[in-house]
């Protein structure tokens, strides 16, 4: 994070941010320009409403969910990241919702796109994020009985897995 202050913030001119802002009327959203896309941050409680609005808007028409994942920012919490695309207008958008580290709940996006199903299952088992209202919250890649370990979190170590198998070390991972 130390280098960010010195890099100039890229301008949002010429991007689709104005239209996105208009479509998300009523929802407090902020935007920044990343390397390729515009990243829109929406508060957690309104993210599904915002996604629905983005899909329904005529000029934006984000009918295609490209990817849904989480990023673990350690003390600052977990970001849920949605990458959207419009097959009609051929533009992209990245939507982020920030989750506080002790409050890892967010509404499911399967009501907006059915294709969010497996992404949310994987994010739930890898990060411990609970997607409320998900139709099928079983584990996807992890074994069915390992629902208390969240491997992609930063505090889950990588090297000690070999020690775990056969040893039964307590993990100390918060629920």
């Amino acid at each position: 994070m130390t280098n960010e202050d010195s890099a100039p913030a890229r301008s949002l001119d010429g991007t689709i941010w104005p239209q996105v802002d208009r479509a998300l009327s009523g929802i407090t959203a902020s935007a920044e320009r990343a390397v390729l896309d515009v990243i829109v941050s929406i508060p957690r409680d309104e993210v599904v409403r915002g996604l629905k609005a983005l899909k329904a808007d005529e000029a934006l028409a984000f009918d295609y969910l490209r990817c849904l994942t989480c990023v673990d920012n350690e003390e600052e919490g977990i970001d849920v990241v949605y990458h959207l695309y419009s097959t009609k207008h051929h533009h992209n958008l990245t939507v982020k919702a920030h989750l506080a580290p002790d409050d890892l709940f967010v509404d499911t996006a399967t009501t907006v796109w059915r294709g969010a199903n497996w992404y949310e299952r994987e994010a739930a088992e890898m990060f411990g994020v609970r997607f409320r209202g998900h139709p099928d919250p079983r584990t996807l890649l992890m074994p069915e009985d390992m629902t208390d370990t969240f491997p992609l979190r930063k505090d889950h170590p990588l090297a000690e897995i070999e020690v775990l198998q056969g040893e039964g070390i307590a993990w100390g991972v918060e629920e």
Partner: protein
Amino acid sequence: MTNAVQSDHDFEVQDIMINMGPQHPATHGVFRMVLAVDGEIVRDVIPHIGYMHRGGEKLSETMDFRQGIGFMDRTEYLAQFNAELSYVMAVEALMDIQVPERAQWIRMILCELNRLSSHFMFTGAFGTDSGVFGTAFTYAFRWREEIMDLFEEITGDRLMYAYFRPGGLAWEVTDNFAQRVKYVLDQCRQGIKDVDNLITNNEVFKARTQNVGIISAEDAIDWGTTGPVLRGSGVPFDVRRDEPYLFYDQVDFDVPVGQVGDVYDRWCVRIEEMRQSVRIVEQCMAKLQPGPIMPERMPRMLRTPPGEVYIRTEAPRGEYGIYMVSKGGNRPHRLKIRSACFTNLQALKDMSVGNYVADAVLILGSLDIVLGETDR
């Protein structure tokens, strides 16, 4: 799952659960599919994945930007160059590196040849699924071997190439590259014609694959499918054309699009894509000029500025995306591999319900899954 039948006696009709896999000749890789079958009609499909999960995303967080390329090969192990390409393009986008022209052209050639070899593999495996056991397989693999011979000459490896680097290529291609590519293209042209003649107009094949496994365009978009699955349903979305990377906007090619969305359409789309790939490679070879393959000044240790990027390329199976978050340093903070097969498999249930058990195998085959990238 029980269906009560009205009659004098108390009958309880249950669906049979047929378990296919993870060891099964028809599931391409370690994939498990539980079919709830009523007689011969499929009522429900429950896919189970994760047998090949290796924790790749976590591993990639510990590997720096050159080491990470090796893992990309092992995810999409049939279209390796496309996977490596996404990764190195992500690093280049974060670090704002300009890749020399010659490297870009060679990358394009190799990616398209890889698309050819992956689709040959598909024709062989799909022919086996539909019952032409052996004939389609051996024919297709013969030409795939020609392509893999070329790759072995360039990279030294038959399957796990690790040839792309952020900034360009690892080393220069062989001296007789042009002749070899020309030879391989001739073989591929003949190969496409042979496979086409053997299978595409075969009456039994048409009877087996037409109007089977149909998915409509709206459903396909809603589920997030990509690649030949999406294009077979009529949606003309191809990352090479809509968001061109490398030099795809400077070559002329067509995007084949199906009309019904059944298994036959996906087959035809892939065969046509093979022909277009040959066309692209020819144009690239004509434009290839001598020059450097890496920028002059490349730092020994690659450190990316903080930022994030989502790079997408058109792998043979669909859109292969890399979402890389970097917080400075020489390793990615988060690497998410958006694999096409993972998303396409979600649509399997929609496609299969209502079809016969024998068709379930064909529908799975037409999705052309690679478990390495599904499970990572």
